[in-house]
Each structure stands twice: as C-alpha cells, then as structure tokens.
C-alpha cells in the first residue's frame, strides 16, 4: 500500500498553505482555537497525509490505514481538521462548525465523532507516545504473524508536552521493545502556553535526551514539507531503533504577525487579521 497522493515540491507546499488558510478561517469563525500550534504543524501534516502515510480510501471516505498517525498535541486539532478538509474528507463549510454545539469538530480530536480518521482521543498531554508505542508493537506483531510489511506509527507531540513524564516512560519502552516502526515527531516551536519553553522548563539538549533513551535522532526543518518526507523516506524502519524527528518549526508559521508571538498560542484572528493572513498565505 502506498500514499494515495505522493505529492512534493510546490504542490505539497500549496497543500500546507491551504491547510493554514483553513485554520485561519476556522479559528476566526470560532473566535477560538490554538492558532499558533495549528500553524506550526501544517507542513508536517501535509507531508504525512499527502506523501508519507500509506493508506487507502474508498468512495465513502472510509480509510484503511497501513501506517497510522496520532496527534498527541491534541490541542493542535484545528490543523488536523483543516488537513481532513484539504483531503476532501470534510467539507469546508463543516470547518465553520468548529467548537460549536453538536459539531463533529470539538476542541480536541474525538474518534467517535470522526471514526476511522481520528485514531485516539487526545487532549491530555503526554498520552500519544505511549499509545503510539503500543500500536507500533501491535503492527510489528501483526506483520510477523502474517509475514507482511510492517505498518509504521507516526506520533506528533508538542515540545512543551515533553515535560510530561509519561513520554519518557514510553521512550524507555520503545527502545527496549525495539519499536523501529515508531516515529516521534516533535513540533519544536519552542513555545508553550505561558512562555518560551527554555524559560519554563528547558528541554535542551533534547536530541541527547532521546539518544540516551535509545532513540535514533534526526533534526529537520519542520516547516519544509519536502524536507520532512525526504527524511521519512530515508529512515530504516527495520533497524530495531525507534526514531525521533525533532521538527524545528515556527509557531504561527506563515503569517508575519503570528510568527513566534507567544500570545498566538491561543488567539484567533479578527476580520482584518484574517484578510491579511489569507493574503500572506496566498503569496508565500
């Protein structure tokens, strides 16, 4: 099974920019949302869903996954919904129901609302990595039992989220159980709710921490979708080592007045800002 799009270059970059535009419209309409983190992850989601992840969809948009994705930073769900819309799974009009009563699009992903698309209900931080480790183990067992190709599991965590201890329990286990089909992508935008991560709880040296836990560590520009899929394609998923990709990103990426501004963690664009943002995203 392959990725049904396999897009790259400008086509893939446009996907990321369209995801960003949808995020801005969605959050402006909802007058809420985690705009900064939604924007920083857009290129990662574009690279995964439009190039890396192996899956099949049928006419009813029911998906059969060979690889799987878990959004551990559940508050970045705006980016995920925008990505689902870019995939054609959600109509753009439905994005306008984000956070509203009876919407299928609550402020953190709920698998019962979007069955088959959302893997697991995240929102509490530090949950995605242990679940991903379990799922990666299941995929290894399944492949061994059926002598088929091993599915991979990609989990996107925030960087502030790594302050949660459960991540490190899972990191230890991922190395111990040789989960080489597990890829942890850290959205390293260096900002968390209250301030820059180094002012709150310094995570550096993050690469050495993961290396000490038995991970194979890679750095990538997390706002360059081509760089992301190229790295993912270069990895050896059979080498008995779990992977971490430290994706260096800019929070609020793509819109000049949002980039690297802590307040945009949980801020939404007003009408003027929305127009400005859409213009910038069309031209970059």
């Amino acid at each position, binding site marked *: 099974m392959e990725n049904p799009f396999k897009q790259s270059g400008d086509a893939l970059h446009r996907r990321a920019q369209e995801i960003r535009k949808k995020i801005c419209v969605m959050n402006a309409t909802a007058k809420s949302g985690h705009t900064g983190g939604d924007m920083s992850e857009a290129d990662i989601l574009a690279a995964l869903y439009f190039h890396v992840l192996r899956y099949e969809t049928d006419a009813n948009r029911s998906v059969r996954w060979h690889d799987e994705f878990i959004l551990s930073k559940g508050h970045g769900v705006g980016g995920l919904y925008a990505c689902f819309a870019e995939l054609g799974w959600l109509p753009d009009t439905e994005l306008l129901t984000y956070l509203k009563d009876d919407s299928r699009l609550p402020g953190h992903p709920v698998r019962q609302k979007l069955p088959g698309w959302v893997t697991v209900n995240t929102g509490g931080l530090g949950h995605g990595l242990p679940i991903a*480790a*379990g799922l990666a*183990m299941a995929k290894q067992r399944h492949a061994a039992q059926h002598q088929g190709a091993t599915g991979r599991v990609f989990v996107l965590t925030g960087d502030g989220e790594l302050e949660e201890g459960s991540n490190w*329990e899972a990191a230890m286990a991922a190395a111990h159980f040789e989960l080489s089909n597990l890829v942890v992508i850290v959205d390293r935008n260096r900002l968390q709710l209250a301030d820059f991560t180094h002012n709150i709880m310094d995570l550096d040296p993050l690469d050495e921490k993961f290396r000490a836990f038995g991970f194979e560590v890679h750095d990538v520009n997390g706002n360059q979708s081509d760089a992301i899929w190229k790295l993912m394609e270069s990895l050896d998923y059979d080498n008995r080592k779990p992977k971490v990709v430290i994706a260096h990103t800019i929070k609020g990426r793509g819109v000049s007045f949002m980039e690297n501004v802590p307040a945009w963690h949980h801020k939404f664009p007003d009408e003027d800002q929305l127009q400005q943002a859409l213009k910038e995203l069309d031209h970059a």
Partner: protein
Amino acid sequence: MREYADLRDGAVSAIGRLTAAGQDIIVMVADSTSTSKIGAFMKDYPERVINVGIAEQNMVGMAAGLALGGHIVFTANAAPFLVGRANEQVKNDVCYSATNVKMLGLNAGVAYGPLASTHHAIDDISIMSGFGNVQIFAPCDEVEVAQMIDYAASFDGPVYIRLDNAKFPVVHDASYRFEPGRPDVLIEGSRVAVIALGSVVGEALDACEAVQKESGIAPTLVNLSSLRPLDQDALASIIERHDSVVTVEEHSLHGGIGATVALLMARRQIARPLKTLGITEGEFAHYGTRKGIRQHYGIDAAGIANAIRAQCAN
C-alpha cells in the same frame, strides 16, 4: 467444609483457556508478574505477556495502543497504582477512547493491610464509577471471576475487574452463570437484605449463617458483583421485599456500593432502614492485618452479624 481459592488463579486460567481457544489476548504487567500470578500463562505464552517495568501510565497507554491494533488486552497490576498513577490514561486512553482494554485491579481494598494507605485501594470503585464508558465488576469467588473474564474478552470495550490476593470461599458451583447487571442472590432469605461487595461476600456469608443459626431466620444475601451495568429494577425489587438493608464493602463509604444502594432507595422512594458498612468516609483506612482492619470497620463476619441483628431489632 468450604473450599477456598484465589481469584487470580481463576482469572489467569480463564485467560489461558481463552488464548488456547484462539483469542488474541495480550496481558500487560508493570513489574507485577508475581502480583498477578501470571507465571503459568507466561510459561505457555511468553510472547503474550508484556512487562513495561514500573511504569503504570505507559502500561495503560500501550495497552490502549495494542487494543487499537486489534488485540484483546488485559492489564494486571495492583489496583492502587492502576487507578491512582495511571488515572488519566485509564480515563482518556481506555474509557473515553473506548479501547478494548480489560483492567484487572489486583489486591484492591485493604489486601495490602500492613503496607498502609499507599498500597490500599479503597477508592477504585468510586474512581472507576466516575468515568464514563467502563463496565465495573467485583467477583466474589473463583467460579465467578472466570466467567467475568470470559464475558470481558467477548465484550468489545473497557472493563474493570476488582481482584484480590486472598483465598475466598467458593460460593458458586460450576452451573453458575455470571450475567452482567444481575444482582446475584446467594441466599434467598427474609427480613434483612445483606448486599456485599466481592472480597467481603465470604464474611457476609458467615454472618448470615451465624444469624440463621441463632434466630432460625436467614437473611437474604446479595453478591453485588456487577456494579456497571446494574439492573436497578432487580436490585430495587430485592430491597422492597425486605424490612431493612445492610451493605458491606471493603471500600470507602464514599462512592461504593453503600452509596449506590442509598441512591437507588432514595430515587425509588424505598423507605427502609439502611446500614452501610465500609471504610469511614473521608479517612484513609487503618493499617494492620486485614483481619484487624476488617474488625475495626465492622466488615468482618462478627461486625456484619451485629449489624444484621441491630436491623432485626429495629
């Protein structure tokens, strides 16, 4: 002479039987191989037991992931560390996400008597009941636990089963069939309905027999092993046929079966004297021998018999 057996033996042999029959079961432990008595199963199926070390949050998170990957996953570790340390993983990754994980809460109540409150789980039923989307069972003997394991494996969704490390009297014969929701009537008696939770059903049985011996009148004894689902109509109709009620649990009186029965009686306007026996609300349990602790809270056979007598005298 009663036969006594360890609930864990019943649970582990049932898991082995299901696996032998082709069920794709994985058992996860957090360094709790001896606590869970999983050794025999591990010998037969070493690749089906995953020990994550002393890391309960990761155990439950990985269990959810393995379940998402198609396995039937049992977690087996001490109840206090399951409901305490892994609380949010139980809530989000298992219950809320509706993953197919069966959580065995080992050595619940004051099974770890002298090890004191870090190791007691007098709040597991209360905490689990606070979560949505999880079925909650407390077996009273080896026959019942095996049937619960069968049911849990066949049911697609989260289940919590309260277990223990003591040997309990076997009160069911092989013909017993566990039905989720159904209050299990062990003695069909009169006047007082005694409703007991799992680990103290044996104590309640001794108490009922003692009272019958001295008064000639047997109280009714209900083994309330299915806490969720619970057939409220069936339980209400049992209570209505009696003059008074005694509940017994090795659990805090906050959020346990006493509270469940009281709420049911209030909702249905069933006016009967109700005596709730358990660990005093708002306190950590005393530590010491289990016998001593049970005696202190009046949840041993003598204490329960006294409560029944007091209700009869009402």
